[in-house]
């Protein structure tokens, strides 16, 4: 990608208060993520998860990935979460509300997760060199078009991800069939 073009395209878009928005969105994402796993009521969890998803979508926008952000909103927040809410309302949560919401193994799980976190942090601090401290600006304006090129190819050639795309559609088909068969009372 030619950086010259990129700077030209992004010339008009000077990011504003980037750190502020980053910390706000990141904080929102993490806090509501915390709410997802701590709330007793599944609907509250789902609502918190929606907030997380939307803040992550905002982070994508800050990373100049508008198409991924759009997909995140339309598929995750609009589709999957409605499905989640639908199922939560379908299954009885009266009983689960009164019971323990964490299982017996929770200390072990917590410790394991903390270890994982420590490992991550170690990797980040040690491997600072690994993550190049740079941000190559991708052209935001033609993000969708470029992704489309990768997915479908252009001028008759197959794109890099065309095959994967087809496989993904197959995966979705299988998931649809599985879900239908699973939920049908009488087949």
């Amino acid at each position, binding site marked *: 990608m030619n950086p010259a073009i990129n700077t030209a395209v992004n010339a008009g878009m000077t990011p504003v208060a980037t750190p502020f928005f980053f910390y706000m969105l990141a904080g929102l994402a993490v806090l509501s993520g915390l709410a997802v796993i701590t709330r007793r009521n599944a609907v509250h969890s789902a609502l918190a998860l929606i907030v997380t998803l939307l803040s992550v979508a905002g982070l994508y926008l800050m990373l100049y990935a508008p198409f991924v952000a759009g997909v995140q909103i339309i598929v995750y927040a609009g589709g999957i979460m409605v499905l989640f809410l639908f*199922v939560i309302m379908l299954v009885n949560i009266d009983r689960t509300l009164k019971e323990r919401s964490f299982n017996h193994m929770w200390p072990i799980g917590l410790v394991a997760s903390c270890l994982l976190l420590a490992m991550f942090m170690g990797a980040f601090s040690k491997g600072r060199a690994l993550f190049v401290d740079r941000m190559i600006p991708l052209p935001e304006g033609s993000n969708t078009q470029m992704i489309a090129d990768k997915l479908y190819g252009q001028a008759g050639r197959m794109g890099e991800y065309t095959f994967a795309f087809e496989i993904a559609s197959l995966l979705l088909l299988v998931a649809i069939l599985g879900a239908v068969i699973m939920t049908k009372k009488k087949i």
Partner: protein
Amino acid sequence: MTDITTLHYLVVAAALFILGVIGVLTRRNVVIVLMSIELILNAVNLNLVAFSRMWGNLHGQMFAIFIVVDAAAEAAAGLGILIAFFRNKETVNVDEIDLLKW
């Protein structure tokens, strides 16, 4: 404030990932376990998109899109299984999904 670097995003993603893992490991309600998996997938996505920006190519974003597709499939199948399970056992608790332990 300093500039936001890739590492910042990675830390956020790591936090979300850990939250997701904790949720998967400790919660009893299958629905919330599934939601925690979504958290994990989102953390991965965030990493991928951040790397995509770091390297200045689109592969990360492509992977993120495929992961979203995968998440949709996972949610549909997972919730389908959950409903089928709930129909038979009247519970959504992971602890009680123990038929194979016999």
